[in-house]
């Protein structure tokens, strides 16, 4: 049976660390090694950053919610906001990284890489909007040997 906990912060950058700390604690239940947990944390932080920065335009006073769903086989994170929705094609466009050129600083930009980082860290990434609630969900399989 799925167990779920939902973590909610205000849309202030300094509160995102609280999500990371809680996520680290929760990932104890996944049995994943520390390097894997760090990748999941990175994906969540990128998604929370996007909610604060893009969905709410950097404005505080709005909710950013992360749902953590756990079964023995799988766990899933959903990052929710009630701000401006993303054009979901952004997610399809975000791809692998081109090689930056040492001699051309214009190729160094790492803006526009948040979604690509998220896709590279998780198995399945989806984005949906419904009744003003935007949800970026990402999940990954857990080895069957792992306790949950």
């Amino acid at each position: 049976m799925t167990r779920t906990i939902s973590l909610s912060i205000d849309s202030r950058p300094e509160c995102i660390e609280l999500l990371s700390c809680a996520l680290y604690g929760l990932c104890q239940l996944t049995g994943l090694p520390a390097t894997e947990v760090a990748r999941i944390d990175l994906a969540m932080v990128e998604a929370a950053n996007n909610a604060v920065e893009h969905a709410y335009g950097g404005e505080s006073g709005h909710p950013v919610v992360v749902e953590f769903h756990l079964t023995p086989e799988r766990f899933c994170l959903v990052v929710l906001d009630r701000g401006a929705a993303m054009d979901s094609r952004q997610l399809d466009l975000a791809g692998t990284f081109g090689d930056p050129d040492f001699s051309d600083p214009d190729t160094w930009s790492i803006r526009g890489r948040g979604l690509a980082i998220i896709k590279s860290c998780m198995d399945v990434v989806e984005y949906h909007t419904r009744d003003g609630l935007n949800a970026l969900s990402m999940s990954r399989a857990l080895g069957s040997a792992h306790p949950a």
Partner: protein
Amino acid sequence: MVLTHRTVENIDIVALAGRLVMADVPQVRQRLLAIVEQGSGKLILDLAEVGFMDSSGLSVLVSVFKAARAKSGEVVLLHLNPTVRSLIELTRLQQVFSIFDDEATALARLH
């Protein structure tokens, strides 16, 4: 985020400690740009104590490098922990930043 600055023969060495994430970006960007501005443009960033970095933190490194380059300088990275190293490799920025495991070699590169 704690930032410690010293200078060795015209080369700035800055050690960061903590999480380099969106909340810290404005402050860290400003302080590093000021160091590049006032210095030679040759900067070693010691990230030994940076346990976590996100893409907004990475964007600080990139903009500081651009400012250094504008002065014909360079930013090199020292002591990456595995999490930070894997973010840099994921975004392929190891093609831009030289990465060192000891300070002497990093200093030799910038001399």
